[in-house]
């Protein structure tokens, strides 16, 4: 059964549907691999073995009865631990939520259950999704399966490692400034941040509400399309989710890029981008050109301001969102003899980690009386300029291709003492969040150390079909996505 763990989700779903293998056999193979592998990689915060086996058995009964068991029937899946799961601990990798068991499911979780997916566990992240290496987890860091001395990226590091190491063929992450795409790049996967509003955020523990989006990680664009089919759509529980119809994303994968106009923005190929990363991305663009795509140079002149504006907008929203953690109704409560303010201050001081406190502080400052115009309003105006950059670029091309990250995976501990340096690893991914656009990362090579290189595709709002088609076409003509650590 060990060969099962290296298959794509699409292949596993087909095998189960055709009764070549039972959902229970698949689930047991992945659970056994988690037990053997996770002690080394530390991706999982909770393994839900018993529930997984029960779900798999229910899928097998449905299939035996000739019923439709769902698009993801029997496919194991790992969830980032900031997605609320009824009856299963949801910690956001924070001590302040230790022991919290949500009384409700996130909308994406409900949809996954309806589609027959088998939830194998909840996986690690940077605390409250704030970070780029999963080293900010309030519990333990997660390691990159390609080189266990290196970080898997973050904040959805656990999601990326679960897939890359064969502990689950699919995972969900969340992306506020690159948290799906950057770990997908560091771990050799395909990861998609959908357009803001494409997927309901109900039950995703909020970080930056105007930036957050849930999205899939898998080996291939086809697997990502399969999972996006299940989670996309309007939800009355999230007023920012859009009522657009959900296409069958797998039907968009025609293998055709002839006449496609690829824009290459010069601002993403600047100094600081590792020469090897640049070379592999340019070579991938060459592959697509060879298949009939046209390549044009475009410019996104406000790119250089995106990082600074993001580090006002995201912490400002985070400082409001995290105000709810006061120790009163759930999660950790500090011992305190004082008044209520003392209880709140002590609970939050003890419950939050250093990075989260830093972001709450900068956000509180940026929103405080007298500074709002200089910081938050200014950042929102810069956000408009960044959006207009993209609007203009998409009059000249269909899709943008850039590196996902300036470098391949860095060493554990390498950037923990240098918060600014850490934040730079999101420099290529942040603009898509600021503009609400879809962004997809896929593997386009391996550097001399054997580490995966990620290439990013960005398109206009709601162009997920296009991004998936381009990624899938590339994967039909290359084999980077078939390598396993």
């Amino acid at each position, binding site marked *: 059964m060990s060969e099962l763990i290296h298959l794509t989700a699409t292949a596993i779903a087909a095998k189960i549907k055709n009764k070549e293998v039972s959902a229970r056999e698949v689930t047991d193979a992945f659970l056994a691999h988690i037990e053997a592998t996770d002690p080394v990689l530390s991706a999982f915060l909770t393994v839900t073995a018993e529930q997984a086996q029960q779900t798999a058995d229910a899928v097998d009964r449905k299939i035996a009865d000739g019923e439709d068991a769902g698009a993801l029937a029997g496919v194991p899946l790992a969830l980032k631990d900031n997605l609320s799961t009824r009856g299963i601990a949801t910690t956001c990798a924070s001590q302040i939520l230790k022991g919290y068991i949500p009384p409700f499911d996130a909308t994406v979780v409900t949809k996954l259950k309806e589609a027959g997916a088998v939830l194998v566990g909840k996986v690690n992240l940077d605390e409250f999704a704030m970070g780029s290496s999963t080293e900010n987890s309030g519990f333990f860091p997660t390691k990159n399966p390609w080189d266990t001395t290196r970080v898997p990226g973050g904040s959805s590091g656990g999601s990326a490692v679960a897939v890359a190491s064969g502990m689950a063929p699919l995972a969900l992450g969340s992306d506020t400034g690159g948290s799906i795409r950057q770990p997908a790049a560091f771990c050799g996967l395909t990861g998609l941040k959908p357009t803001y509003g494409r997927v309901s955020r109900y039950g995703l523990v909020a970080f930056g509400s105007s930036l957050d989006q849930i999205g899939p990680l898998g080996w291939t664009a086809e697997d990502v399309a399969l999972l996006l089919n299940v989670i996309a759509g309007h939800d009355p529980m999230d007023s920012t989710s859009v*009522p657009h119809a959900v296409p069958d994303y797998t039907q968009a994968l025609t293998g055709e890029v002839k006449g496609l106009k690829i824009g290459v923005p010069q601002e993403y190929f600047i100094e600081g981008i590792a020469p090897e990363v640049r070379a592999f991305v340019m070579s991938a663009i060459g592959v697509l050109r060879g298949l009939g795509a046209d390549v044009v140079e475009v410019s996104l002149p406000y790119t250089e301001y995106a990082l*600074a504006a993001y580090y006002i907008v995201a912490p400002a929203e985070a400082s409001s969102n995290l105000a709810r953690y006061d120790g*009163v*109704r759930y999660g950790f409560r500090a011992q305190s003899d004082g008044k209520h303010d003392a209880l709140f*201050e002590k609970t939050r*001081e003890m419950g*939050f980690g250093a990075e989260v406190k830093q972001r709450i502080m900068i956000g*509180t400052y940026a929103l405080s009386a007298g500074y709002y115009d200089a910081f938050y309003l200014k950042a929102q105006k*810069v956000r408009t300029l960044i959006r207009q950059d993209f609007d203009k670029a998409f009059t000249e091309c269909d899709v943008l291709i850039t590196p996902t990250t300036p470098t391949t995976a860095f060493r554990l501990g390498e950037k923990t003492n240098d918060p600014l340096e850490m934040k730079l690893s999101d420099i290529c991914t942040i603009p898509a969040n600021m503009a609400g656009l879809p962004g997809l990362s896929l593997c386009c090579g391996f550097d001399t150390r054997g580490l995966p290189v990620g290439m990013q595709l960005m398109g206009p709002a709601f162009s997920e079909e296009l991004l998936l088609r381009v990624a899938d076409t590339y994967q039909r003509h290359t084999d980077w996505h078939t390598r396993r650590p």
Partner: protein
Amino acid sequence: MPLTPDEVRKVGTLARLALSDDEVDRLTHQLNDLLDQFARLQQLPTESVPPTSHAVPIQAFLREDRITPSLPREEVLALTSHVDDYLGGFVVPQVIEE
């Protein structure tokens, strides 16, 4: 004008964080580093640029004004051990002065 440790302490109070002296020192440095980064935004002329609060245009949805069930009280109270079973509520420190 860089932030002083006292100002950082004041922000800490606004954010309801009981910061230690070491943290105040560290945060003073870190926040000033970030403010230096933000300074570059100030050079951009944006007087005539409208702000973006949501990147994708959002319509306000109306739903039927119908009562739907909320979470059962027992389930919500089960989330913490600091409850008063008799009164059926969360226990908090004294809020009102005697």
